[in-house]
């Protein structure tokens, strides 16, 4: 295989909130089967980019394709892990119920999740190490367990491309390991992952591709090629003196 298949192609993506551009003319090619981190300073537009790709907000310009077809036609190939702070965890529902929501798009109208969906959800929970929590009320979960619940919901989507918004944000060591394992399993299965990531120290350890973003795309490509001091300084404006890339 000479030319790699592209899982995600973003062209000219521009998003503006009240005339102020938050994302300016971003192009991005993501080959199939890579784990790509999107890094950049606060306010760089990382979450905005994810949401614009997913069609959750309307971009001023731009085009997104998944496996060479417009995003709208390929929705069933896409999985999404939102920031866990984006929902009210006091909602009256159980962990299993939340995970089964991953299947709502495929179920269609009127139909309720059945025994097969339940089993699939239990399997997804097992993969994230939460098999014992299926019946748990979601308000009783720790932050890491909330994150793993969202991850299980995305696994339930059985997608080809996963978009994750800060999956490692404020999680415990157990959850961090669980997420890393799942990312590796996904890659082994030929899936593609795009994750907004905050911790520059772990980029080269957890991901093989990286995109540096600060309103514009600074660089993107394999970690060992583009995760350079120079690119980081461009993205972060010289405030990365703490970074010790090759220990």
């Amino acid at each position, binding site marked *: 295989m000479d030319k790699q298949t592209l899982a995600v192609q973003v062209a000219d993506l521009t998003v503006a909130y009240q005339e102020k551009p938050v994302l300016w003319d971003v192009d991005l090619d993501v080959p199939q089967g890579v784990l790509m981190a999107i890094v950049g300073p606060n306010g760089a537009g990382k979450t905005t980019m994810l949401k614009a790709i997913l*069609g*959750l907000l309307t971009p001023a310009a731009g085009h997104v394709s998944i496996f060479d077809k417009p995003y709208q036609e390929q929705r069933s190939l*896409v999985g999404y892990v939102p920031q866990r702070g984006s929902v009210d965890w006091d*909602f*009256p529902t159980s962990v299993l119920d*939340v995970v089964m*929501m991953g299947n709502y798009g495929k179920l269609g109208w009127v139909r309720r999740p059945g025994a097969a969906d339940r089993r699939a959800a239990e399997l997804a929970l097992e993969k994230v190490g939460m098999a014992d929590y299926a019946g748990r009320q979601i308000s009783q979960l720790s932050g890491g367990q909330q994150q793993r619940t969202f991850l299980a919901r995305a696994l339930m989507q059985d997608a080809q491309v996963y978009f994750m918004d800060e999956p490692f944000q404020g999680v415990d060591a157990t959850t961090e390991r669980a997420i890393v394992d799942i990312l590796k399993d996904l890659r082994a299965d030929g899936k593609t992952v795009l994750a907004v990531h905050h911790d520059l120290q772990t980029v080269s350890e957890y991901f093989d591709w990286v995109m540096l973003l600060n309103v514009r795309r600074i660089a993107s490509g394999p970690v060992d090629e583009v995760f350079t001091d120079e690119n980081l300084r461009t993205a972060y404006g010289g405030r990365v003196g703490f970074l010790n890339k090759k220990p």
Partner: protein
Amino acid sequence: MTLLELLSSLLTDHTIRTVASGTAILGVVSGVLGSFAVLRKQSLLGDALSHAALPGVAIAYMLTGSKSPAVLMLGAGIAGVLAILVLLNVTSRTRLKEDSVLGIVLSVFFGFGLLLLTFLQRNPDARQAGLNTFLFGQAATLLTRDVQTMAVFGGLALLLVLVFWKEFKLLSFDREFGASLGLPMRGIDILLTTLLVVAVVIGLQAVGVVLMSAMLVAPGAAARQWTDNLGRMTLLSALFGALAGVAGALVSSLGSGLSTGPVIVLCISLIVLVSLLFAPNRGLVWNWLRQWRNRSRLRTEAVLENIYLMSSQHADPTHPHAVTALEAVSGAGNVRRSLEELQRRGLAVPHSDKKWSLTAEGVRSAQARLQPAKDADHE
């Protein structure tokens, strides 16, 4: 009149039966739809939509000259839907925050409705039409026909909730995720909000525009206290709404001056109060009890550890210590009660002259308590 006689009037008295079935339907429908409003933190939405219905009632009368509740309710419904459209458009097209828009829609629509109402009051025919009753409601005016209309529309609304159950759940919990699945979340939102208008319209005649918002928020808020399951919460909310409706109808039938709407609202408020205080897990009383129990447990454990630490300065870990010494180390709080608790568990024993010591079991327990804490530090 005894309670039994009052309840039997439900079966024997035609008027009371009609009114009570009307208010029960209103309670069920607003309870179910209000549950979603409560979970979506949209309590103000119900308020705005019910107030917005008033000009619809007045205009429906002006256009048709009809006093038929069905016509007036239709007018109220149209005004409600119009209010939703204004809300959605203003919120998405301007920088105003949703709660500001809700406040504006509420007061503009309601003010306009009041204006029309006072204008119509000059017309004796309109006075007779009793449009005023839509302000605070008058359940006594409910006829069998009205109740049938309420049942049909209420039943339809409930059926739609059942059909779109999982979509409404997803909308309430994680709208963006729903959108990422490709579901038309905006359409689902409009549908749910329209059903909320149906609930408002059903309640207008009996409870009125001013108090209707209580019927949308209170049953759901009360039900949330008792369960962590959306289905059960919605059923319970419907039950609470119906209970308040029937109780309100019965109580107001006792005295001629009691209007039903406010009595129903008082009944549901009572249910809310009881739920806030006494519901297991979420109730305030339950919380106080739990806090108190935790505090006394922690205090007991602190006393156990303190005796152990003091004794470990001696060769004998069961060396007795004076209560006063323990009080000095453990700070304020009821050391004696903690010691008695320890004695009950067989971990400490009293000696003469107000001294206490650990039993062998107590020493083991204290060591076990202190040991894992040290290990955890190294992890």
